[in-house]
């Protein structure tokens, strides 16, 4: 069955979620693709609690905006998603900008809660559709949140993986390095090397990112889309070809 690139990314993220025990996921990024992946896991029958911070109606919290951070501080958030204007080979994230501090060349919106969440969530999946040497750099201009920490600094989790529009990298916090795990259809190792500003290892098992199954696509286009229509109508229309009821 043919599928959209966003559908491949959603099922890829969903597989990474299912790869480790996951009771509670918070999705704070504005991107709908991690949200689709979470719903895919949930609708696929895994008992997982989702706190979707960009849901338009409702709101899982009653202590105001600090509750997400407290919840994560308590160790109750097993998985969070982060992106970044720049991501480097040690999984450092830059959400500040480029040029002189605080981003005199290009200013990004800011770090949000990344400088806390990246340490305190059980693990983080890094997600950035754009895969270019502009985004994936050897060394970020400014560190919003570091990929690894020194001894004596409490850290509950690290990056599990980096998923881009071209491939999936795994991350080893002990070595502070990414390993290329799978290539999306049409990509080659040479191409990834050319488009990536940082050095990385290559998995001996390097293969193609598995395509969505028919079952996954049916879930995505049916019940997952149903859940996402209110918050992401434009995305649902474009990717799942579903129009909102008038």
């Amino acid at each position, binding site marked *: 069955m043919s599928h959209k690139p966003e559908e491949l990314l959603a099922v890829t993220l969903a597989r990474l979620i299912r790869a480790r025990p996951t009771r509670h996921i918070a999705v704070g990024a504005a991107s709908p693709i991690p949200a689709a992946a979470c719903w895919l896991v949930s609708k696929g029958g895994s008992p997982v609690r989702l706190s979707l911070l960009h849901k338009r109606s409702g709101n899982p919290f009653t202590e*105001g905006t*600090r509750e997400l951070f407290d919840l994560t501080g308590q160790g109750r958030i097993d998985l969070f998603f982060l992106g970044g204007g720049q991501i480097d080979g040690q999984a450092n994230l830059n959400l*500040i900008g480029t040029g002189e501090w605080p*981003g005199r060349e290009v200013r990004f919106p800011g770090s949000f809660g*990344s*400088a*806390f969440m990246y340490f305190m969530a059980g693990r983080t999946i890094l997600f950035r559709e754009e895969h270019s040497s502009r985004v994936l750099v050897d060394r970020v201009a400014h560190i919003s949140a570091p990929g690894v920490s020194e001894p*004596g600094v409490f850290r509950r989790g690290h990056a599990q993986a980096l998923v881009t529009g071209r491939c999936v990298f795994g991350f080893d916090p002990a070595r502070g390095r990414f390993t290329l795990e799978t290539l999306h259809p049409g990509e080659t190792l040479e191409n990834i090397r050319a488009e990536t500003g940082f050095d990385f290892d290559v998995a001996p098992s390097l293969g193609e990112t598995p395509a969505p199954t028919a079952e996954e696509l049916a879930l995505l286009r049916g019940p997952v889309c149903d859940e996402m229509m209110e918050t992401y109508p434009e995305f649902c229309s474009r990717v799942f070809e579903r129009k909102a009821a008038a």
Partner: protein
Amino acid sequence: MTTLEEMAASVPDGALLALPPDNSLPSVALAKALIRRGAKGLRLLGVPVSGFATDLLIGAGCVAEVQTSAVSLGEAGFAPRFSAAVRAGTLKVVDATCPAIHTMLQAAEKGVPFMPLRGLIGSDILANRPDWVVMDSPFGDGERIVALPALSPDVAAFHGVMADSLGNVWVGRRRECATLAHSSRRVLVTVERVMEGNFLEDERLAPGTISGTYIEAVAVAERGAHPVALLDEYGFDANHVAAYARAARTEAGFNEWLAEHVFTQRAAA
């Protein structure tokens, strides 16, 4: 009770003014009134990030400094006047991270000089915050942790749903506004309407109420959060914000937008 324009007049130039972002009851009405009064040199605090009202105030030249964890128009993208001011070097930006701003306000709420927060170490945010200190855990377990100083804004402003006869304000589940009220020296609140009675005597309303103890002044400003959503009262006006984002790409476009949406409102009022 006071009026919106009197409330804006009571905010002195240079004040440290705390504003919640677009998901958390900002008083866009008061931000516009501050622009009309020609406020200068404001130091804004995003609680914990900043949105539409902050971009307006920056564009109108009211702001010297912003301390925040991000400035964004959400789905409408980067905040154009903030971005332009950073590029031009006319705005001092003090970067933070969301839970650090909550923690600094909670320290002030609790009357302690600081609170610790995990994370942060290794971030350049910390490297650029001489007021944040890395300390050793006092329990001798070898943990290094950041101590954040208490932060008491000079003025906090937000938009509640309703006030009662005694000056109590109902904000529902947006309890960050309560923490903000507790930690600030002065609290100014716009509301949709004023109701008879005492919310604190009603067990159904009390949990979402901020006691008048903390509130200096209340002014009615109908649709005072617009274009931002107000709980279940009205929704987010995405078209309005998108049109603003387009107009405010240039200073001229921003000024036209202000003339139409901020300065003509006074004539109409």
